[in-house]
């Protein structure tokens, strides 16, 4: 999946499911400080993103993400790896 498609998919999920304004969804937005999410939201987010993109994430790696940019990168990385496999 192309990176831009991934970014768009994740943004769409976040704005729909977490009711976040699109203007807030920038790569440097911190999930907890800027988007007001907590650790439980992060789990819900993981499930929604997997559902939307069809990409199965490594939970351990996902627990390390801090910004939205980290999320885009991780999903893109896992997506390209699964394509190679």
């Amino acid at each position, binding site marked *: 999946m192309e990176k831009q498609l991934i970014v768009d998919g994740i943004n769409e999920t976040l704005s729909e*499911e*977490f*009711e976040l304004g699109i203007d807030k969804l920038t790569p440097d937005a911190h999930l907890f400080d800027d988007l007001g999410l907590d650790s*439980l*939201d992060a*789990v*819900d*987010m*993981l*499930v*929604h993103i*997997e*559902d939307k993109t069809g990409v*199965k994430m*490594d*939970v*351990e790696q996902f*627990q390390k993400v801090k910004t939205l940019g980290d999320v885009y990168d991780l999903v893109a990385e896992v997506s390209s790896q699964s394509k190679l496999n």
Partner: protein
Amino acid sequence: MSKKVTIIGSGISSLTTAIILLQKGYEVRILEQHYVAGGYLHTFKRFGVEYETGGHYQGALGDGLPFQRLLSYLGVFHEDDYIELDRDHVDVYRFEGWGFSYGTGYEKNILNLIKIFPDLEEKIKKFFDRVSESAHCFPTYYFKTEIDQKLVMKHLNISLSEVFDELEIEGRLREVLEAPCLLHGVSPKDVSFGVHSIMTDSLIVSAHGFKNGGKQLVKRFTDKIVELGGEILLRKKVTSIERDGKRIKAVTCESGESFESDLFISGIHPKLIFEMIGHENLRKSFSSRLTKIRESDPFVGAYLLLKDSVGINAKSNYYFYPKGTQSVFGVELGQKRGPFVFMSSPLRTYNGEGELPLSLHAPCQSDEFKRFEKLEKRSKDEEYLKLKEELFKPLIETIEEEFPGFKKSIVSICYSSPLTNQFYNPSPNGSAYGIYHDSTCTGVKSLGPRTHFENLYLTGQNTLFPGLLGASVSGLRTSGHIVGIKSILNQLKN
């Protein structure tokens, strides 16, 4: 001042949580909707026999094994309450034209499989090594205070099917190794290997049945709870929940009584508790996730009394696959599955003489009983009775082929439907295993124990994995979140 806790529902997870919190000085009150506590440990009397609703058999109850250690830690384990199942034939799987019996002990199962599949010795050994390695790495199962996070993740992040693919296990061997998926109701493609390994390990290391029914264990639990100063209030069906922002203030029962406390723990189906809170009061992200979570298959049950045993071993469990059903998971999800039937006896002490009671359980379609949902005096409705009877006809024929004379030997029979289940142990569709425990709601992605409400916790099979062991361990996990898991695991370890 000690903190007050209200627990909703009195299944084994709630009872486990209650004892741990009481031991740690909390004030605990349990609200149970029925006239008797116990959830799936309920038994009911028909034809002079106590039939189990859920406690058909238990794994890991042998000396030094996890379930026995947990029950001993809680002060509710009494050796005399249990009887060991047939060590050579715990779970007897009958496929079309062949079969396999799982027994007690890894070595025995490995040797028996090698006898059938002599060329696949290495694969068989590798598979069981992996099951054991996985089961032993979970800290709340074999009770460890140190956790190898990488190993846990390795086993949680892979499905059972993916493990078969990696080990190149196919055909009949795969069929017999995936058959125990019936114990959690999740397809091998969807079940996390970690979860599956715990269920498999628990039944390989030891298998027991209740001598005097699941209600005996409930009595042990309730006696202990009362001894520790807790209270169990019966006929208290919680119907509404009052909240104040992100805190739960009180729960109100059908009777009109309201109960306030510092903490609330829900042992009932998560969908039901959040429905009471109201989806409009949940974060949309959580509400939509919860709505999307599937339920496992609903079950129909038949409870029989046989004139004599016709060769059925009361210390075995039987799984039959009617003709044409290669394996219940052999077809893609979404298509109508061929049913299997699970048969066991509630009278594990049966000595081979006299009448033998049996129960049969089989999955059915979710919508099959929908039309009878609102019907008053349903139990007398002819169409309802006929549907239950019809569903069992082909299944009884299958058993007859295995045990000639079975049909003629039936003295009495009665049935249950998903609606019966919905009444006694409410779930949205009358499923026995609760939510469909696929990879979207197990491991880190489990629902609970924490919730988006700061003083509401979840417990029960839906928050971990199904079965009495799964539910009881979920109680350990929930109380661990409240009082700190390390000190509890340290005590359990020793």
